[in-house]
């Protein structure tokens, strides 16, 4: 069939159908990871090693004391291990596949993102959901195993568990938008390797993934409260452990939703500007 034989409404319908099937791109993560079983084994080994080392370190730290910064051994160990599992959400390594946004920018293949029957913003979202689902599966597996073996404590109540789960979903949405802003920076800087890595560190520190935020001085926690990072991890985990009361749940969730709305508007604006300045290296 020639292009001339296709009438515009037919083209539009075809385009809409293709757009509706865009979710299939989420499978790319799973297909890429399982293409090499060694990578799956690596993720499993590293998750196991991180979990064991983290557990033993925190058990050792509490050998000489029963409470520190108001946290007992079980709470601190649970928080630290949940922090390890949380990092699994970002365990997908797109480097090896040359599938990071900055690599597409350097290779010039970023141009294809703007030629598909799906907007680049939607494509990014679908792929990120695939990554989060894959990382989330590892986190869920680790959580289930550690809960069943008693390494980590249960949520203080069923309501706290549900509140923490809801807060975690919103926290992941914040994480998604923040990561997107960092990735989009390469439209202006061409390379953003250092920015991506630096963001990962700042995110882990300010979210409380490295050390529970309760161990930090008051001024640090007060400053961090004005940033979106706490909402990605510290809030859900604090709800899980009962450190944040359920009476403040609505306020906590509203704050997270506020950040999501703000970041969503910001990323939409940045995408619009980015589309106007795509650089295809090599001509």
């Amino acid at each position, binding site marked *: 069939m020639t292009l001339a034989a296709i009438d515009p409404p037919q083209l539009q319908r075809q385009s809409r159908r293709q757009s509706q099937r865009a979710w299939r791109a989420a499978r790319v993560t799973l297909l890429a990871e399982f293409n*090499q079983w060694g990578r799956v084994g690596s*993720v499993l080994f590293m998750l196991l*090693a991180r979990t064991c080392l983290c557990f033993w*370190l925190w058990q*050792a730290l509490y050998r*000489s004391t029963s409470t520190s910064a108001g946290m007992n051994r079980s709470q601190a160990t649970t928080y630290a291990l949940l922090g390890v599992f949380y990092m699994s959400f970002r365990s997908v390594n797109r480097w090896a596949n040359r599938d990071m946004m900055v690599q597409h920018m350097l290779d010039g293949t970023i141009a294809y993102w703007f030629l598909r029957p799906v907007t680049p913003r939607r494509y990014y979202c679908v792929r990120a959901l695939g990554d989060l689902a894959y990382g989330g599966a590892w986190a869920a597996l680790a959580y289930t195993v550690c809960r069943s073996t008693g390494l980590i404590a249960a949520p203080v109540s069923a309501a706290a568990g549900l509140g923490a789960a809801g807060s975690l979903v919103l926290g992941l949405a914040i994480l998604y938008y923040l990561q997107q802003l960092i990735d989009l920076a390469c439209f202006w*800087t061409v390379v953003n390797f250092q920015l991506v*890595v*630096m963001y990962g560190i700042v995110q882990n520190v300010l979210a409380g993934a490295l050390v529970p935020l309760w*161990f930090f001085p008051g001024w640090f926690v007060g400053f961090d409260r004005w940033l979106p990072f706490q909402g990605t991890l510290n809030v859900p985990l604090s709800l899980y452990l009962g450190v944040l009361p359920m009476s403040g749940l609505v306020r906590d969730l509203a704050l997270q939703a506020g950040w999501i709305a703000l970041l969503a508007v910001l990323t939409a604006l940045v995408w619009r500007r980015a589309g106007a300045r795509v650089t295809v290296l090599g001509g």
Partner: protein
Amino acid sequence: MSILNPLRTPGPADAGLPMRAYRSVRGTPARWALYGRITALNFKAQASYRGEFLLGLLFGLVWQGALVLFAGVLLLRFPGLGGWTQGDVLLIAAMRLLSHGGYVAFFPNVSNLSFLVQQGNVDGYLLRPLPLYRQVLLARFPINSLGDLLAGVGVFAVALARLDVAWTPVKALYVAAGIIGGMLVEGSLQTALSIAAFRFTGLATWTAWVDETLSTYGNYPLNVLPGAVRGTLTFGLPLAFIAYLPASIVTGHAGTTGVPAWLAAASPAVGLLLFLAVKAGWYGSVRWYQSPGG
């Protein structure tokens, strides 16, 4: 073709190798001048992306600063970790940071070998009249190293102020040797890991994991961990030799490490021997190299 044998420095008899190219790198001063020119060009290339360059300078400081923050918070909240005073633990952290700073200054490109292979750079290296390992080390200017070294110097200054050690020239020299030994242990680990890059992609997660494990658990006295874990981190992933064991000699904790005192004292030599053995193994493994072009 002998030129493709990276085990030795090529000679004039090597077919296809321009004599002038070979002569230009013959002799130690000429070689160092060449390394200097390559490094200067790499520096210039990276400085052309100004924002990225500045972030690179900051990166080491932020990453190591975050880990020192982690260690500092734990030290304040849990004093007397494993029977070590704050100053003693800070010496471990400082020695590890300085070792890591040295590693980042000299060996960081080894951990990026999988990318160099993927981009086809190694094909080019095999045709040049310089040893392959050296070319890998010179592939990119380590802009992160400045921040890493700064973090190390800062923590070392704090540790010195808090340490209760009677310093002698021998002890000071031992600390310096320990730092170099630690750098070689880290370089050996990443070099050993990079062997897999000759055949497999996706090694970045492993190199990052090793880096993260050394950076996170290399700052503490390992005697707080269960015996089996301590053994694994001493003889499996030899993290203990980077800073913990040499610091135990300086601070007088060698008896609590669970390792014979002579072995703990020999940590700098362990680093050197490990590096030489791994480097020989690395060259021996080049025959596994599979070009991305097939």
